[in-house]
């Protein structure tokens, strides 16, 4: 039989296999990196109508989170403050600042500020803020150190896997109840070991048993 293909073609199958393996690896890595909330959500940092500086208010001035987000501990929803809340102070402080013009307009017209929502849980997720805040889970565990952010960004992925990570191992995040709103708090010497040691104690003491069934979040 005459040769239908030149001798070099012997290596073609190996090349094809190699290409396929590389393509598959690239696709897997690409999807793992670009198609998960770690990439699609983390880092979202929209420009708000008023450049509210969390690092100034919650950091330097030491305002408690609950002053503005007042319903977090008592309801499933943690609210964005109304214009009234801002004006409690800003009627006196920087009352003529041009940066606050949209706020004053909202105050005068009665139309709410159009704050841009950063953390959006899907409709099929029933997340309850009060359940977490009243059992030693700090704001910082899900929202990062907002007291250090000049402009707030989406700090954690908020994927289902990320939720379950904590529901499966709550000792990595749970803290004494009085430290929930102290975003700078760290257990003992600040090491993970100290956190886990204290976390285990709290889990035992409060009999914390985070649900892992579908019904817990999807009803």
């Amino acid at each position: 039989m005459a040769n239908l293909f030149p001798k070099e073609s012997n290596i073609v199958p190996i090349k094809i296999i190699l290409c396929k393996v590389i393509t598959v690896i690239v696709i897997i890595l690409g999807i793992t990196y670009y198609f998960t909330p770690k990439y699609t959500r983390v880092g979202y940092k929209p420009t708000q109508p008023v450049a509210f500086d969390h690092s100034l208010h919650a950091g330097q001035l030491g305002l408690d989170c609950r002053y503005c987000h007042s319903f977090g501990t008592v309801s499933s929803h943690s609210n964005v403050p109304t214009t009234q809340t801002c004006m409690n102070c800003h009627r006196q402080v920087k009352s003529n600042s041009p940066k606050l013009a949209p706020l004053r307009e909202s105050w005068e017209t009665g139309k709410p500020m159009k704050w841009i929502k950063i953390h959006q849980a899907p409709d099929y997720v029933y997340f309850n803020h009060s359940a977490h805040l009243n059992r030693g889970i700090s704001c910082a565990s899900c929202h990062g150190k907002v007291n250090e952010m000049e402009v707030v960004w989406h700090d954690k992925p908020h994927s289902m896997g990320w939720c379950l990570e904590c529901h499966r191992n709550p000792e990595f995040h749970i803290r004494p109840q009085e430290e929930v709103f102290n975003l700078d708090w760290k257990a003992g010497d600040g090491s993970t070991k100290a956190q886990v040691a204290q976390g285990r104690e709290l889990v035992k003491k409060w009999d914390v048993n985070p649900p892992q069934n579908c019904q817990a979040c999807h009803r």
Partner: protein
Amino acid sequence: MAHGTTSVNANSPDYIAAAKQVERPPLVGNGRGFHWITEKICSIIEGDTPRWWWIAFFITGAISLLVPISLIYLVSTGIGTWGLNHPVGWAWDITNFVFWIGIGHAGTLISAILFLTRQKWRTSINRAAEAMTLFAVVCAGIFPAFHVGRVWFAWFLAPVPQANAIWPNFRSPLLWDVFAVSTYFTVSVLFWYTGLIPDFATLRDREVKVWKKKLYHILSFGWRSSNRQWKHYEMAYLCLAGLSTPLVLSVHSIVSFDFATSVIPGWHTTIFPPYFVAGAIFGGFAMVLTVMLPFRAIFGLEDLITEKHIDNMCKIILLTGSIVGYAYLMELFIAWYSGNPYEKYAFWNRALGPYWWSYWGMMICNVLIPQLFWVNKFRKNVVAVWIIVWGPNIGMWYERFVIIVTSIHRDFLPSSWGMFKPELNDITLFVGTCGLFTWLFLVFIRFLPVIAIAEVKGVIPEADPHFHGKEDPKGGHHV
């Protein structure tokens, strides 16, 4: 044949006459030889496309377009376009899935179990039966994939790490099903393709056009028909046969677990796995005959697919059909003997409830009609065979419908009883898959050797190293 016969004079006319009487009919008729087999099978591919083929191709192609149309409508509008609703959440879709998956069983049975049990008659039917298996599994796979509702999440069934950090539930038979069917499809493809390799080489050697020659060369992996290659080939084929044999039994057993592991009366039955496997082989062989007899007649393959082959397949249908009939009767017996009122009601409702017609349709098509194969005359008449096998073809669809719909439309709570009525989209999708199946088969018979050339050559007398010519009645050693 004449080996070791020392006490009998093997040359006496009486002996020869007696030997002729008990001799098995040859597997290739009319004493056809190597050359004829190659010419006959290759001519189907190499010849001009017949007009009937084009007509059938366009008709079945048009029907198979119903599949994408129905699915687009289903996905864009919602799963309610199927008649599914409470309490009948599984209906035509799962019926069709089990129906097609069952049909896919004959191919592997012929290729694997008959190979391991050295049934040489498998050689001229295994290629087409395996092709039919693959096409049936393709049709079957459509239904559960879209049954999940949000088909774009069907990949959740695969155990891959993902952002939801959930893992498929390995305690669910529905997941076992995913693995069983995908393994079955993969092994069947490998088996089918391995068998095709020497035949692709035959086509290559006969081909004149260079591009086609090159294509066949690639498809045959550069097969040279050397002893060494044959040695590896046969070992690979044997290993794949060994792998597929348990699959023949496991796939439909696992399909039956989808029902048997539940608590619904009529589903919760230990007899299900063997009963499903027998039913699958029964329906599969019926479909093999349904598609094989027409192309046997059209291409004049009577010398390759002989009366003996058809006879054997009819007998398998008779056997498995009787097993299925026994299972039906045993279910009825247990419904009475168990004393369980729910079980008893489920079967009373099947036979006399609102779906009585499907139950009796199943009984007539699956149990009574195949009994005609006890009669030799029917097995020898291809037209009769072709008509009779429509019994199992229809009956096996009815069986799945009976099992699924009649069991769940009336369960423990009379307040939740209901009825199922198929919607147009149920019907178009099923008709579409029938078209797709036929269309794929038409493409197969036009472009690939429908009969395993190399294997059939291996079962003719000339392939025996001791062959001494057709005039030698003993065909054996010098005495």
